[in-house]
């Protein structure tokens, strides 16, 4: 998958106090594992939302395999799944299996085909014992697994993950990290758990809406730490 950002800027609000959260970002991403780090408010989440066409840039353009996010949002969302920080915000149906199946409502697949896919994912993520349980009564780690399964059911080519471990304890964060490492898809992951980025191909460091470092994990994390030290 090839993702291109051409001079992308994004500003929220057009009143007396507009807030520019991304400034003139130009990037080409082709790696399978891309990490995104930076302070809260540095522009990470806005950057990720641009990739899934949840927002379109105020200026510049974002291309995914040649598709423009401003024009081809529907096709793009078929190719790129999005995982939010808070799984509760992503769970729509009352029970675990219904929520996983939800993404295939308009897929044209038969009930049997949908059930088979749901079963596969339930087993893969160890949720099979909870298939008929209320989704909101799962533990935090299980809810994030459910949210991930609900995204994967549509078989996207890439996954964009916005701090999926921030609300989890260390054990569950490590578990999500292992699951992410095993995914076949391209992954673009924003996180504050820096150890999740071990083995990633490339890490971007955002600061005040700009990419201030773009390197392999060790070098990018060192640069991020220097940035934090410089601000103390």
């Amino acid at each position, binding site marked *: 998958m090839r993702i291109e950002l051409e001079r992308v800027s994004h500003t929220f609000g057009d009143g007396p106090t507009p807030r520019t959260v991304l400034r003139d970002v130009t990037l080409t991403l082709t790696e399978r594992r891309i990490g995104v780090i930076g302070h809260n408010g540095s522009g990470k989440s806005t950057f990720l939302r641009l990739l*899934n066409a*949840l927002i379109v840039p105020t200026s510049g353009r974002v291309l995914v395999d040649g598709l423009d996010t401003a024009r081809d*949002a*529907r096709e793009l*969302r*078929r190719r790129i*799944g*999005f995982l*939010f920080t*808070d799984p509760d*915000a*992503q769970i*729509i*149906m*009352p*029970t675990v299996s*219904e929520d996983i*199946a*939800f*993404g295939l*409502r*308009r897929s044209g697949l038969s009930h049997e085909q949908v059930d088979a896919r749901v079963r596969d994912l339930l087993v893969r993520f160890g949720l099979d014992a909870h298939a*008929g349980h*209320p989704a*909101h*009564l799962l533990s935090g780690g299980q809810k994030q697994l459910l949210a991930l399964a*609900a*995204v994967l059911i*549509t078989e996207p080519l890439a996954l964009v993950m916005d701090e999926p471990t921030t609300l989890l304890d260390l054990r569950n964060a490590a578990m999500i990290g292992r699951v992410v490492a095993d995914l076949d898809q391209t992954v673009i992951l924003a996180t504050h758990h820096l150890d999740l980025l071990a083995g990633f191909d490339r890490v971007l460091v955002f600061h005040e809406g700009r990419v201030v470092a773009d390197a392999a994990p060790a070098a990018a994390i060192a640069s991020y730490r220097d940035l934090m030290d410089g601000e103390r």
Partner: protein
Amino acid sequence: MRASSLGLFRPGHSPLHRLRPGTKLLILLVLGAASVVTQHWWWAVAILILGSMLAYRVAGWGVRLWWLQLRPLWMLLAFTAVVHALTSGWQRSVADTGTIVVLVACAALVTLTTPTTALVDTVVRLAAPLSRFGLDPERVGLFLMVGIRCVPLVAGLAQQVREAQIARRATTSTRAFVVPLVVRSLREADALGEALVARGIDD
């Protein structure tokens, strides 16, 4: 019972579980229409209340679950009952409050005995003729889904706000309850909308 599991489908093999979702919705519709007439006779409403309790029994549960569906509304029910008793007499009070009780309990019974997906599929099927007038049946189903999702969501938020209120000893302030509840509900609605779009629903 936690607020987030209110009215949520409970698997079972009772006659009510086996009844087709469309039939259950039709019964609910008839009950709603009939309540316009029955609310004139307190004794008819009382019989319907007993009938709704019996229906929970038939579904394999007891009066406790019946009451749990109504408990979040107890303040509204008490207010309605008192106001009607004072202004229109006890018969009117029983009839009007009882009508709300019957309809809420029976609506909850439909969702308790029907998987949400089956319910939504039925509504989408029933709404299919409306596509001639430009209405997307899937969107009607989506409205229902989001509606069902929002009931326990808002109930859960109300519980959290109430706990925060108690923790901060602001138990008597209505504003301290309503303002954060509305703000958080709007935020959740935003997040839910974003999640639907991200999952490719309703593009």
